[in-house]
């Protein structure tokens, strides 16, 4: 069973000629089949965690480890991480002018699977995945993320999740900017992938709303660059009722043991 292990991860960025530490010792273990929700206020470092694991060059890992089944993820290039089974659904997917969705999907599926999918079955596979996400077939001929609405971008990310079948999927604020219908369809996509039992999901979100559709096994509160509280789904209910205030106030964090390996 695939396991992603994050140990004492410290990450910094260069900004205005100074180095700023954003992640200050993150510990987390995500196993295939599990769904973890990471919840936290703006600026707590949630997205930094997602992008650092994916290998974005903007972030510098200063210490700690990330392994996938014991393999050192931090040693891998961005594309190697994806081929090893990591997937990041981005909050702000990037426009790639001139590259059609269908070409992009096939190119990435070929890279991930190690061989070009057979055309006939591939076309069917894409078509049915798009139908399930209520995406117009004409979508495949548009350029990647170019002129997409917020909802279309997120559906497109989840479409990739469904087609690329990663071992570990990190969903970075996939729920933000979605109306209720889109949120439901996107969540159904995530649940379909989860139902296969083949993927471990790290769901990063600011809001509890998406947790009505996606049921996490574990909920973690993220504040000031680290996990400050962990629990089951009931923790999300508490956050919904009380907000993040308890975790963002100055001074030592109460009631949390961020060093504990929760999974």
């Amino acid at each position, binding site marked *: 069973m695939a396991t992603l292990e994050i140990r004492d991860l410290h990450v910094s960025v260069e900004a205005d000629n100074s180095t700023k530490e954003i992640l200050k010792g993150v510990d987390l273990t995500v196993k295939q089949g599990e769904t973890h929700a990471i919840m936290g206020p703006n600026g707590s470092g949630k997205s930094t965690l997602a992008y650092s694991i*994916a*290998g*974005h*060059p903007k972030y510098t890992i200063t210490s700690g480890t990330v392994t996938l089944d014991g393999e050192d993820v931090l040693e891998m*290039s*961005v*594309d190697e*991480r*994806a*081929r090893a089974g990591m*997937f*990041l659904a*981005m909050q702000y*997917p*990037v*426009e*790639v*002018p*001139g*590259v*059609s969705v269908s*070409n*992009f999907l096939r*190119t*990435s599926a070929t*890279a*991930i699977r190690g061989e070009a999918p057979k055309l006939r079955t591939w076309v069917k596979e894409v078509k049915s995945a798009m139908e399930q996400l209520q995406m117009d077939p004409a979508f495949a001929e548009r*350029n990647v993320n170019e002129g997409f609405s917020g909802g279309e971008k997120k559906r497109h990310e989840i479409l*990739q999740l469904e087609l*690329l079948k990663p071992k570990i999927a990190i969903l970075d604020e996939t729920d933000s900017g979605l109306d209720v219908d889109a949120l439901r369809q996107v969540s159904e996509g995530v649940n379909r992938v989860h139902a296969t039992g083949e993927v471990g999901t790290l769901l990063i979100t600011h809001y509890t709303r998406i947790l009505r559709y996606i049921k996490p096994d574990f909920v973690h509160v993220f504040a000031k660059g680290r996990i400050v509280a962990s629990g089951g789904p009931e923790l999300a209910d508490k956050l919904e009722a009380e907000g993040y205030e308890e975790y963002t106030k100055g001074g030592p964090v109460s009631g949390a043991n961020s060093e504990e390996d929760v999974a």
Partner: protein
Amino acid sequence: MAEAQNIPVGSTTAGTIAVAADSTVATRMSAPPSFDVADFPVPHGREEEWRFTPLERLRGLHDGTAEAGGVLTVEVTAPEGVTVETVDRTDARLGKAGTPVDRVAAQAYSSFEKASVVSVPKEAVLTEPIRIAVHGEGGTAYGHQVVELGAFAEAVVVIDHTGDAVLAANVDFVVGDGAKLTVVSVQDWDDTAVHVSQHNARIGRDASFKSVVVTFGGDLVRLNPQVQYAGTGGEAELFGLYFTDAGQHQEHRLLVDHNTPHCKSNVAYKGALQGDGAHAVWIGDVLIQAAAEGTDTYELNRNLVLTDGARVDSVPNLEIETGEIVGAGHASATGRFDDEQLFYLMSRGIPAGEARRLVVRGFFAELVQQIGLPDVEERLLAKIDAELEASV
């Protein structure tokens, strides 16, 4: 109407739109057009039309020191009904589509010995392209090529340039009334070649001319496509794509002279650059003369810089002498292949090199799809793929 974005350091993109007296197109040249090389002073490099070109790499084409003596073959393959002739300098059909605008073009016109004339009779509609294979085996050559279409004829001409040469030439396209001519000119030279050529199109009444210029090779390639209209209702579409590698200088200088009412022109050139010393120059001059009421024109240049060390100079100029037009505009933008695009593609398992190829192919495909001739499009995409496979 000019736009510019994400301009890499060391590049320029400057546009002008001038009205009436403030001429930016006609008066920028250091001498008026002429067939005689003696009418042009030897350029020193600061002239408007030479300031982007490294003169020392012209191998003497610009100063009279390049003596013909190279080996250059021109092979024309044409479907039945087309006349292919080799003629001498006195042939009356030469020089009818335009006059050399700079010293190298005039040098070519003053120096060639034999010209090739390809004629498509009136009303002939060719189903197969005419192929002109220009192949150099080294050394200097001067050439002159004429392609003429009679009234209502339709033809596709594909000109391939391969091998090594120092070539200066003029190519005339005389498009008869109501005729349709598509020309694809591929510069697929060895990395040592120098190629300077002026393409002159004279477009008849209600005729259409489509030019597709594809520049991949050469040490220095400098092309001057020129368009003028012989009657109302003419249409010109000028497409170009170039892939400029380390050390290459590729320059495309266009002039569309709207001298006749109710004509159209559309210019779209796209280039990708990579490597140290890669230098692409695009000059898009459009002149709308006072008589050219009802003109509709647009020109666009886009550049994609893939690595550091490459330089783009992109200068669109629009000069308008009448306000009674349908439309006139231009756009120029130079962007970098950005790290976020690369990250996005790589995060989907696509290796960096393949991601780059995917983006460049897409960048060019957008242009190729506008050509409107499926077999030409297919061949070009295959050519682009081969180029990308070899160099990115």
